[in-house]
């Protein structure tokens, strides 16, 4: 069974979807067995009781000719429910094969098919079907087929995008390299990816088509006036609602509940496939005192710094003490398990470790930016003697504005793609320094020049996607400097860059740090970067600091086994230009 199949199965067994599915089965069965279930002949008139409300004889009342509403409802569903299958079928028959071809072959086939879909999107379904009704004298089958053709553009898009998405996966390339025949690649790697999106699309389309057909029947088109149908029942109810509005109730309920059930099942499958994204609010900075209490026995790995020693507090720009951060449940391992460190004023402090070591989480905690669902359980983060974890939203905002700057890993995505560099920089300058519009423009230009951009006026008018990685990172640095921070937190600031660009950015950071006498907290996985920039370094593993000291000492004479392993594993070009390749050393021994 495919993963998508599993996801669909899980999705439809969730309560809302299961109830909806059950309701659809009930409705379908009731309509299919209308002949046996209806208490009355749907056409039998009882002119003595017209437009009655519910009575013991007529459970849902009667219409203007005294016909039983319940019986008419039971008989009025199947025509719509069955006819709605036609457009969906037509649309799948056209859309899926064309979508598969276009998505797999791409090129001119794709262009042509997309154009055809655009043409279909230009034709409003209802109006065209009305035209068909006019020329075919209400032939519902033809009307349904034409509607199917018109909506096939949507199915085509879904199939095409799913195919193109799967086609570009590296595992398809690997299969091609293994010379797997095309039909087997389609069957094995591409078609399974279509199942989910197409199931969702079919459900949503079926419900839309069903509504569409009821509209037609409400307009008196397509369905013969003799046999009851839900649209036509609504029309009757609407005509007589001034006399007795009751009839609107059962009719509306039948229609709405059916469409709602269809939609809910469709959405449930959609969510099962894409993963329901819980809206994530901005990270909450304050620590969870209650949870901290529950975790009280999680013993910190390193001895907490004694802040009573006034020395450390005075010389330090930033002190973190026994910081504990959890992402999962209470019994899961802590992402940051009791980290204590002190960053001295004006120094560059490196936090190194592999992915998952908790280094980035620790650094982001300084800004109150631990990503959800992470929670700070315990600890203190002292900046100028002020505990940042105890601050409220507005206090934290002040600290972020004026005391700390953040530089992120991916400069392109760290900038808002919709605004020019100049506009973003000016916005932050006005907010953080309270500058006038004019002064902000001037300062923006100075800042861009300060980060090494020779043509600040050109860069200021550009959008992030027009910048190269190196220039984008310089812009990010300028944004971080806009608040004239005491501390710069740099999270892997050069990881996404080419080495020659990386070298320039490291030079820039070094220059800015000394010119502005800023403190730098650098997070990096690259020991070379740390060696280049940092005065002191802490090595992290599994949420703890395993070794801390001057960069010189930790990198050349590591004490902890893990630090040694990390240093040894780092491929290097050493100074004498002799290759000390790990692979060969190991082979030789």
């Amino acid at each position, binding site marked *: 069974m495919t993963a998508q199949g599993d996801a669909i199965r899980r999705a439809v067994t969730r309560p809302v979807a299961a109830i909806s599915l059950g309701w659809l089965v009930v409705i379908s069965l009731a309509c299919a067995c209308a002949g046996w279930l209806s208490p009355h002949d749907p056409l039998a008139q009882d002119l003595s009781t017209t437009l009655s409300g519910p009575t013991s004889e007529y459970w849902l009342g009667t219409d203007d000719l005294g016909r039983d509403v319940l019986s008419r409802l039971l008989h009025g569903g199947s025509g719509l429910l069955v006819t709605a299958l036609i457009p969906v079928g037509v649309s799948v028959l056209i859309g899926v094969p064309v979508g598969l071809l276009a998505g797999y072959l791409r090129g001119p086939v794709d262009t042509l098919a997309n154009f055809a879909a655009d043409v279909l999107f230009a034709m409003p379904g209802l109006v065209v079907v009305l035209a068909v009704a006019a020329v075919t004298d209400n032939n519902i089958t033809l009307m349904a087929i034409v509607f199917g053709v018109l909506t096939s553009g949507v199915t085509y898009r879904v199939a095409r995008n799913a195919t193109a998405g799967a086609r570009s996966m590296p595992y398809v390339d690997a299969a091609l390299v293994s010379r797997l025949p095309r039909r087997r690649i389609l069957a094995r790697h591409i078609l399974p990816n279509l199942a989910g999106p197409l199931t969702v699309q079919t459900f949503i389309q079926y419900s839309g088509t069903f509504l569409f057909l009821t509209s037609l029947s409400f307009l008196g088109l397509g369905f013969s006036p003799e046999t009851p149908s839900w649209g036509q029942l609504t029309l009757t109810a609407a005509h007589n609602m001034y006399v007795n509005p009751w009839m609107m109730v059962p009719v509306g309920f039948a229609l709405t509940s059916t469409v709602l059930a269809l939609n809910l099942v469709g959405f449930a499958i959609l969510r099962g496939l894409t993963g329901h994204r819980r809206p994530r609010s901005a990270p909450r900075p304050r620590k969870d005192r209650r949870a901290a209490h529950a975790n009280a026995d999680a013993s910190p790995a390193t001895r907490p710094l004694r802040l009573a020693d006034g020395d450390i507090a005075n010389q330090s720009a930033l002190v973190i003490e026994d910081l504990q951060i959890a992402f999962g449940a209470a019994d899961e391992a802590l992402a940051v398990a009791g980290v204590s460190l002190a960053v001295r004023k004006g120094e560059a402090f490196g936090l190194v470790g592999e992915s998952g070591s908790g280094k980035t989480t620790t650094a982001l905690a300084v800004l109150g930016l631990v990503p959800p669902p992470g929670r700070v359980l315990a600890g203190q983060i002292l900046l100028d003697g002020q505990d940042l974890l105890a601050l409220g939203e507005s206090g934290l905002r002040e600290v972020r504005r004026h005391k700390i700057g953040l530089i992120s890993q991916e400069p392109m995505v760290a900038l808002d793609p919709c605004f020019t560099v100049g506009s973003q920089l000016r916005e932050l300058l006005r907010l953080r320094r309270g500058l006038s519009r004019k002064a902000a423009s001037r300062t923006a230009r100075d800042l861009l020049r300060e980060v090494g951009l020779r043509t600040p006026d050109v860069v200021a008018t550009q959008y992030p996607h027009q910048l190269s990685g190196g220039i984008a990172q310089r812009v990010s640095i300028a944004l971080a400097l806009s608040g004239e921070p005491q501390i710069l937190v740099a999270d892997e600031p050069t990881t996404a860059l080419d080495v020659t660009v990386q070298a320039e950015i490291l030079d820039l950071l070094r220059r800015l740090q000394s010119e502005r006498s800023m403190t730098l907290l650098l997070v990096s996985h690259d020991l070379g970067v740390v060696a280049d920039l940092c005065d002191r370094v802490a090595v992290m593993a599994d949420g703890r600091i395993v070794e801390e000291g001057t960069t010189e000492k930790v990198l050349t004479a590591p004490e902890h086994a893990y630090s040694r392993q990390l240093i040894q594993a780092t*491929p290097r070009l050493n100074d004498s230009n002799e290759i000390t390749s*790990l692979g060969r050393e190991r082979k030789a021994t």
Partner: protein
Amino acid sequence: MTEPLLAVEELAVTYRKSWRSSSVRAVDGVSLGLNSGEIVGVVGESGSGKSTLGRALLGLTKSTAGSIRFGGRDVTHERAGSRSSGRVLQVVFQDPFSSLNPARTVGSILSEPLEMHGGMSADAANSKIRELLLRVGLPADAMHRYPSAFSGGQRQRIAIARAISVDPDLVICDEATSALDVVTQARMLELLGSLSAERRMAVLFIAHDLAVVAAIAHRVVVLYQGRVMEQGPCRAILASPLHPYTRALELSSPVPDPAAQRERRRRRVEALAASTVEVSQEVPEVGCPFAPRCPEAFSACWTSRPKDNAVGDRTVACHLYDADLAPNPENRRNETA
């Protein structure tokens, strides 16, 4: 002299981003060769065309000029899916997540290349898969699980197992270790190196990190803006990079030793004339693509394209090593002697 396993001559790949934009020369006249059992590293920064080169060799991208000979046959115009049998080519991609179909078990993923090599019973295939998993350092029962049950490093081992399952003559590794942590990366390099040695399997190892390439490759090809700048034995190139770009690349790669790094930093500043900020991203139509950043560029570098000058056992595409053009060619040649 016998023909190398892979011989690429003047290969070019040109493409357009859209029908309106002008064409981009992603790979621009690359020539390289690869012998059986040899590990050749291709190193380059973003925009160097290294991945496009790999895809062209695999037949996943159309090449627009030049030729690719593999195992003595011209495969320039054979697309990946329709390549006829002969020497076997395999691939390991960068992303350990998207390179394995999440909906299929590891066993089914590993048996895929085997299917096409036919004549293997289900039992034989199963024991082969077990053997492969053990060889790459995974438990045999991994075959019943899905890729999602494995870490990035383990998945990359699965991808390697898939590649070696059909005893390929050549494996192209496109940034195969760059998504991994250093310790995992070191183990992966070791695994690749020993597999290559024990099976006489050639490896084309594409990466952006010179130090990583240096850790595994016998020979190195340095790419910049789609062109080969320098190629030759790994040791020699790292000991004395000849091309100014190679020198800049080598000195830009930081080493985890503060004292050594300070010294390299000083030398690097001399090795690059212009920062990337001042250089437009356009490749000069004529001349050397590195000229705008080169501290030693002279007039010819802007007007004529450097040819591949042989210097000892390597080639350097730089006018400094061209006897007819260089201001003082003797000087240069002596440096390597």
